[in-house]
């Protein structure tokens, strides 16, 4: 691991400003992904700013009936919160489907959104990777691609976003609240927060240099029946091959967001218009234009079947 300086932040604005003017600085909260990448020298910050003392560790009701989840709320605490379990069950379910208890006890809400891909070629520093070393090429294309993306891909990158939590956040239309380097605040809709790889797969989010997530806002509860189905190679503690988050609304309409298939949480609102026609119609629109390989072509029918199963479950109640 490369050496780094370490400071504990005591002011949000100062933390953002310091990070923006200091090259190669990273914020650290739970550290479960960042430290792993630092050991492998995939991440090589020269300075760490510990944001754990900034106090964004509460879940509070908002004026419009939703919840504001502090950036530092641990995954265990978010999944266990009585209001989340009651009104945002898909979020609890997604969180509990991810990682292990040890990791969820450390991992934070903001850090979970900022997780890096688990593409094995991103992790192997001996191989070209446009995300790790822009312009070096993509080793996954033409390589072993069972876990890779099938929609929204580019010729530069076919990595997936690994988060379960983010899939539920996308389904719920969460908003990411930040403080920028100049001290101003802004709100980024989750749909615009994560990016598709395009020609710059190293740029994964809409965050500017130094910009610090302070909370994630959940709109008022949707009601309906929530489900999160995760399909993986073992029953627990593995990343998704495909995961499907759904909510079936009291009026019979539905929403669906999918994990394990794209560089970002995958949701196509237009596909949801086909809800009355059934799971196949929705899945066909959702996965339209998929570019698959022999290794990962199974993901397209798997999305369809998992969505159908989630809808069937919901109808049973």
């Amino acid at each position: 691991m490369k050496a780094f300086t370490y400071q504990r932040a005591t002011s949000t604005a100062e933390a953002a400003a310091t990070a923006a003017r200091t090259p190669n600085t990273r914020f650290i909260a739970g550290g479960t992904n960042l430290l792993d990448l630092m050991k492998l020298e995939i991440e090589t910050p020269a300075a760490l700013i510990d944001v754990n003392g900034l106090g964004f560790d509460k879940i509070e009701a908002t004026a419009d009936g939703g919840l504001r989840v502090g950036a530092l709320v641990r995954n265990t605490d978010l999944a266990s919160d009585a209001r989340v379990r009651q009104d945002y069950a898909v979020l609890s379910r997604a969180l509990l489907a991810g990682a292990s208890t040890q990791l969820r006890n450390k991992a934070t809400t903001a850090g979970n959104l900022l997780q890096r891909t688990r593409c094995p070629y991103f992790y192997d520093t001996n191989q070209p990777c446009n995300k790790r070393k822009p312009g070096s090429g993509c080793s996954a294309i033409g390589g072993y691609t069972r876990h890779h993306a099938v929609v929204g891909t580019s010729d530069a990158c076919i990595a997936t976003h690994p988060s379960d939590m983010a899939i539920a956040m996308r389904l719920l239309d969460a908003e990411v609240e930040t403080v920028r380097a100049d001290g101003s605040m802004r709100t980024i809709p989750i749909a615009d927060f994560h990016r598709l790889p395009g020609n710059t797969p190293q740029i994964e989010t809409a965050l500017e240099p130094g910009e610090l997530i302070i909370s994630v806002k959940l709109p008022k509860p949707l009601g309906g029946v929530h489900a999160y189905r995760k399909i993986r190679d073992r029953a627990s503690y593995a990343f998704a091959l495909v995961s499907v988050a759904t909510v079936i609304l009291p009026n019979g309409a539905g929403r669906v967001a999918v994990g394990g298939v794209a560089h970002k949480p995958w949701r196509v609102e237009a596909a949801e218009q086909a809800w009355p026609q059934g799971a196949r119609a929705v899945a066909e629109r959702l996965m339209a234009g998929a570019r698959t390989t022999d290794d990962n072509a199974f993901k397209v029918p798997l999305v369809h079947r998992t969505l159908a199963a989630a809808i069937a479950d919901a109808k049973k109640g």
Partner: protein
Amino acid sequence: MEPIRDLKLTRRSLLIAGAVSASAMAVPQAGAQSANAADAADTHPNTVSGGVSFTVNDKPVTLELDTRTSLLDALREHLHLTGTKKGCDQGQCGACTVIVDGRRINSCLSLAIMHEGAKITTIEGLGTPDQLHPMQAAFVKHDGFQCGYCTPGQICSAVSVIDEIRQGIPSHVTGDLNVKPLLSVDEIRERMSGNICRCGAYSNIVEAITEVAAGQTGGKA
């Protein structure tokens, strides 16, 4: 290949050298550096050390550490509490599980300097050879291990699992999120999935945990 004895010496002398150079230069302010992103590789400081105080198994300790030191390495290499094991060092195996402020974590994926004021419990703090923790005794009774390497992590997790279920923290297999989870075999297996055992002692581990859970709650497991 260097003999292990020499490696140890080399590392210790490196640490000493690192501590000296860091105290001579003082900890630089992050804002004092002004290289551009192109020479990012050159912005790395020399070894930086920092102080941290926490309690381990109710004993207060203060350490001066390279900022890169994981909590796991601080426990094993600096405090010589070698019960906590280094398996993968990547948060994938759970051998390094310890309990920090009442919550189990992977000590390999946490920097020691980030634990100022924390209350840390390792396997050495749960029981002693003369006075085993009930979970340790149950692992012995049920043959919950073969090689034993994952066992300290398994036991720290197992103790936490019972606590988590009692607190009502749900898991992936909890049927109804709004009902308190049960102390069932399915719940135990899911909650222990972050602790890998290459010897495959899982069924005996579940039996050990089940017995302790039943004894503590007075109910049937």
